[in-house]
């Protein structure tokens, strides 16, 4: 009765949201949870309930897995919207459950989930597979530090959960020792893009969790992800079950199980989400050739990278997560690797969309010196924190004459087109992405009218 009521409330509130053209992904679940305790406990779930979590990359991974599964004949329910907290998952599950039988009509429930919300959303015994992309410093006002988040994730992992982990991350690699019975591992072998020395920014996990000796890295992919071992005990990365080899970001390919895999974007983090999508699909029993066909013919762009062209200048939107220094690093590395002159737009109006704190410490963990390059023509700073960002850029030795403060956001593209040259890269967070998208649409519409 309780579950029927929960489904009824969720579907009704969702319908009302649709009538009033409101976003109905979070609110219905929120209403249900106010009325009913543990509404998801009695749902009859599909055979596979697959969770993808971690500090970054979960959205891109879920997109690709959904594509593979749906195109290989599986019925998948997944959080396409990207809403990944308890309220949103509650809405999704209830709206896709039969009102009387409480059954979800699917082969697989596939969810991108916030690291802190897994345990409080699902009771033990429901999740069948849980994959962890990476655990890095991310939103410290909420997530404290990587070790805290790792513990939160592992609290949701009961002994029967099939764990799929990125063992390039030594923090996650601990699960290899604590959860050995039901485990699949993936990782990237040494690449030509790796650093051989300790990165020029702080890394999250420098010491062995077992004997506290300093970990020895033969290669850093980025952050604390890489090829490492403890010099004094048995803790080591080892060889993963699925290992991406011969990564080539020019061709946009890597080798995996003796086959060539294509990337849908020539960036390093695309190797990780493609590799994990492959690993999860293989673990779910999808044949190798079918997975490869779907990956190699899947040209959908990553959610984090969108491209458009206006007045002969390409604009690439690199969504860079505030309070996540490695997300910024990925964007910086990408910009640096591109050819020709470049203009960068950077900044944010709010540090977070979840809370009103203005913790700016993370800016100092980002290696902004990557922008100290002759190919960077101008950097336009937008948003209420532009001077804080400017201080950071100044300390990264970016020449002052390259910095442009944009005080009136509506003039941004007028300024960009008159004062700068080269392809345009926006490195902004969620709030500014929406604003810039709207501005670009208006510019495009004006051009059409002309």
């Amino acid at each position, binding site marked *: 009765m309780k579950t029927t009521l929960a489904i009824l409330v969720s579907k009704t509130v969702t319908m009302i949201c649709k009538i009033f053209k409101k976003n109905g992904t979070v609110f219905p679940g929120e209403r249900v949870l106010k009325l009913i305790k543990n509404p998801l406990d009695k749902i009859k779930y599909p055979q596979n309930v697959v969770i993808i979590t971690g500090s970054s990359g979960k959205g891109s991974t879920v997109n690709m897995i959904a594509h593979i599964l749906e195109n290989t004949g599986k019925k998948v329910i997944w959080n396409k919207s990207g809403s990944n907290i308890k309220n949103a998952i509650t809405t999704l599950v209830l709206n896709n459950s039969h009102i009387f039988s409480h059954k979800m009509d699917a082969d697989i429930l596939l969810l991108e989930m916030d690291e802190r919300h897994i345990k409080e959303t699902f009771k033990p015994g429901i999740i069948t597979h849980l994959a962890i992309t990476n655990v890095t*410093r991310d939103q*410290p*006002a*909420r997530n*404290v*530090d*990587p*070790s*805290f988040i790792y513990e939160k994730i592992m609290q949701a992992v009961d002994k029967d959960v099939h764990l799929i982990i990125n063992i390039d991350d030594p923090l996650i690699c601990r699960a290899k020792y604590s959860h050995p019975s039901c485990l699949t591992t993936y990782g990237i072998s040494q690449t030509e893009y790796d650093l051989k020395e300790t990165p020029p*920014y*702080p*890394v*999250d996990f*420098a*010491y062995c969790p077992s004997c*506290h000796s*300093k970990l020895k890295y033969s290669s850093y992919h980025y952050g604390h992800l890489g090829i490492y071992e403890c010099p004094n005990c048995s803790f080591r990365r080892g060889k993963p079950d699925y290992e991406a080899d011969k990564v080539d970001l020019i061709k946009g390919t890597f080798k995996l199980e003796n086959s060539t895999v294509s990337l849908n974007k020539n960036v390093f983090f695309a190797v990780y989400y493609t590799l994990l999508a492959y690993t999860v699909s293989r673990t779910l029993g999808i044949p190798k050739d079918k997975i490869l066909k779907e990956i190699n013919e899947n040209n959908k762009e990553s959610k984090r990278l969108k491209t458009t062209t206006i007045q002969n200048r390409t604009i690439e939107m690199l969504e860079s997560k505030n309070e996540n220094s490695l997300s910024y690093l990925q964007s910086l590395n990408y910009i640096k690797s591109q050819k020709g002159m470049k203009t960068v737009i950077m900044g944010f109006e709010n540090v977070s969309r979840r809370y009103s*704190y*203005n*913790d*700016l*410490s*993370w*800016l*100092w*963990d980002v290696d902004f010196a990557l922008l100290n390059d002759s190919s960077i023509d101008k950097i336009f700073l937008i948003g*209420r*924190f*532009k*001077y*804080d960002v*400017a*201080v950071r850029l*100044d*300390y990264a030795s970016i020449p002052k004459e390259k910095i442009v403060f944009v005080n009136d956001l509506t003039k941004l593209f007028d300024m960009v087109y008159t004062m700068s040259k080269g392809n345009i890269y926006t490195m902004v967070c969620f709030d500014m992405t929406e604003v810039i998208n709207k501005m670009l649409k208006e510019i495009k519409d004006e051009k059409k009218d002309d």
Partner: protein
Amino acid sequence: MKKKTIKIAHLYYDLMNIYGETGNILALERFCKRQNVNTFVDHLSLNDDIDFDKYDFYYIGAGNEDNSYLVLCDLYKYKEDIKKSIEKGKMFLVTGNAFELFGKKKRLSNGRFIECLKIFDYVAVEAKERLVNEVSYTFDKLDEGKKILGFKNAKFNITNNDEHRLFGFKDSFNYKNFFGMSFIGPILIRNPHFTNYLLKTLFEQLGYDYTPIKDTIEFKAYDEYLKNFLLED
């Protein structure tokens, strides 16, 4: 003539670095350079032999709880050296949860205690929930009553420190040139007036002149921040 130099020790740089702490070292270097004074920075950690007499300025930032206990274990062996160093007037800036380690003990919510260095008498008491808060305080030693801007993200409250609080901030401690506070991150970048105050104090002690320079980008960012997000005491 030999150029003046400030020797800085960034302690446990690879363990206590969770909130952009390197910014503080960069600020010290930059502010000293503006005074035409050299800086010499050593990054030291667990396997190093730390000399608490060699440097003029010692800095430790915040780390995760596990790392802070590794650091505490390592610091025990230097306890007497640290005491002597503080008494001599060496400058210490200790931020985030590193600050908790210099007190008497940490009282955990399960009733247990963790013995700390006992260099000072303050006690860190574990709170029910994490203490995340943005705060600002007027510090009478800064020009025109300028505010200190800080961000706290801590698990512990500090008690038994009433007589030694710095600028009235509950979770802080000042004795001679020891400055401890639970603020996290690059506070010397965000608070250029405070950086000037610390360095002026240190320079005077070393017999160097210090002329605060106040028209730089850090001051502009500080003023803009106050304008946009003016916080009350």
